[in-house]
């Protein structure tokens, strides 16, 4: 372990640190204890969740959870045997089935543990299949959850729902879909956060090293406004049947309101692209995977002028190029190194694309009436991932 801060040390200090570290590294490489740990690795099933005795009083119960760092700082619903059993009826999967292992602790997200955390977050029993799909998605290799859970970045996992389950569960896709007031949005996003924390080990200040974090780390869930989307919805674009329901997870660094009364597509793409291009955005360092939530009004303006979703992505990609001279000198060097193979040698006048290709920009349509679209910066560390929501047969 090298103490923080490390990046600002000078060359002599680094030599001293190396001298201190090398003996520890040599010892660990030869540590016979690791052999015994290897011998214990097996295919045995994940252990079942344990019942624990807790206070009967609600205030004391919450204190019990707070002291053990089992919650998110908000009051919880007691995950009793009865409530968890009721939730488990909403899947055909066995309670001890491992849905995914969740980084950085890489512990097992069993169906039962997903249900327990869903109950604690206040989810209704029928929400369980959504969270099973979400757990599969965050556990996928391409999502690279390790880079989300242990970073200083403020990244939160945004859960986007598509398909017929939106209406069935009443997930909000309209007015204030990223705000307060809807049970499904509030508790689904919260349950996913509890899964990341209680199963993945992303405890604030311990494994979760976010410098400030963001409010979306409490809950961050909405659906796509498919009826107002003039193109194919996200899940169909990603190869799922129109009648399928899906959960998509996105490592979003924040939400950025873009209010514009632009009245033609060229003007609209120009101002949105210009908003995306800011010199301290993580996207430009390695080439990001940004998301845009278009308001229905903005989406229809673009469609009315004959643009496909791919055309819109291309237009945003063209308009969001950032002049390299706007970066700090240090970041200029970082980009030079990380994107040399893609862009060659940088000059101050090099125009940096926000992503390697325009299709790395994702677009959904959501929200109610109004001239507000939303930009979600997403660094290259993570690739949004979609999994089908399977309902019990």
């Amino acid at each position, binding site marked *: 372990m090298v103490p923080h801060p*490390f*990046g*600002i*040390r000078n060359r002599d200090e*680094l030599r001293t640190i*190396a*001298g201190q*570290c*090398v003996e520890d*590294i*040599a010892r660990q*490489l*030869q*540590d016979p204890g*690791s052999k015994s*740990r*290897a011998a214990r*690795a097996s295919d*045995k*099933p*994940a*252990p079942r*969740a*344990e*019942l*624990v*005795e*807790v*206070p*009967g*009083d609600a205030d*004391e119960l919450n204190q019990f959870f707070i002291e*053990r760092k*089992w919650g998110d700082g908000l009051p919880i619903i*007691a*995950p*009793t*045997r009865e409530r*968890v059993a009721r939730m488990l009826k909403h899947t055909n999967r066995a309670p001890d089935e491992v849905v995914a*292992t969740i980084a950085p*602790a*890489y512990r*097992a*997200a*069993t169906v039962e*543990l997903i249900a*327990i955390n869903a109950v604690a977050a206040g989810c209704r029993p029928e929400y369980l299949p959504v969270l099973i799909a979400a757990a599969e998605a965050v556990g996928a290799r391409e999502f*690279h959850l390790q*880079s989300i859970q*242990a*970073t*200083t970045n403020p990244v939160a996992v945004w859960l986007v729902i598509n398909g017929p389950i939106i209406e069935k569960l009443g997930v909000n896709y309209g007015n204030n879909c990223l705000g307060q007031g809807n049970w499904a949005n509030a508790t689904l996003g919260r349950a996913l956060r509890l899964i990341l924390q*209680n*199963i993945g080990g992303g405890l604030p200040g311990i494994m979760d*090293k976010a410098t400030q974090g963001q409010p979306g780390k409490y809950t961050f869930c909405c659906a796509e406004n498919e009826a107002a989307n003039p193109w194919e919805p996200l899940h169909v674009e990603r190869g799922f049947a129109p009648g399928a329901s899906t959960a998509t997870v996105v490592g979003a660094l924040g939400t950025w309101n873009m209010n514009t009364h632009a009245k033609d597509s060229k003007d609209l793409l120009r101002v949105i692209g210009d908003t995306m291009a800011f010199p301290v955005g993580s996207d430009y*360092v*390695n080439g990001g995977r940004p998301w845009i939530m278009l308001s229905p009004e903005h989406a229809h303006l673009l469609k009315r002028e004959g643009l496909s979703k791919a055309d819109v992505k291309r237009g945003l990609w063209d308009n969001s190029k950032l002049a390299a001279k706007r970066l700090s000198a240090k970041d200029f060097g970082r980009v030079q190194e*990380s994107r040399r*193979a893609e862009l060659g040698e940088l000059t101050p006048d090099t125009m940096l694309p926000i992503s390697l290709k325009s299709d790395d920009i994702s677009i959904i349509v959501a929200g109610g009436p109004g001239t507000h679209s939303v930009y979600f910066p997403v660094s290259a*560390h993570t690739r949004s991932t979609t999994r089908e929501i399977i309902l019990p047969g």
Partner: protein
Amino acid sequence: MTTGRQVYDPVAPEYSGPQQLRQSLDGLAGKVVGFIDNAKPNFNYLVDDLAELLVSKHGVERVVKRRKRGAGVPVPDAVMQELSDQCDAVITGSGD
């Protein structure tokens, strides 16, 4: 504390399911050690110094260094294969 009831512990227990854990080395002399430089500021210098010390003080035969494109970007599969083919142990950094 009021007398209680039972709830499930929401925290996942330790899990040693299907996974591959590292094996220890029987000494470092003559071994090949790989480093994956995570591209965080200064890590390349730390790797240079550690490599020099592992060779001079611990008899490591050689050190193979590969630098990632960015800290959070996974190592390409080809580099992983190259390191696993050549090295007795591979070390990387996490955090900054």
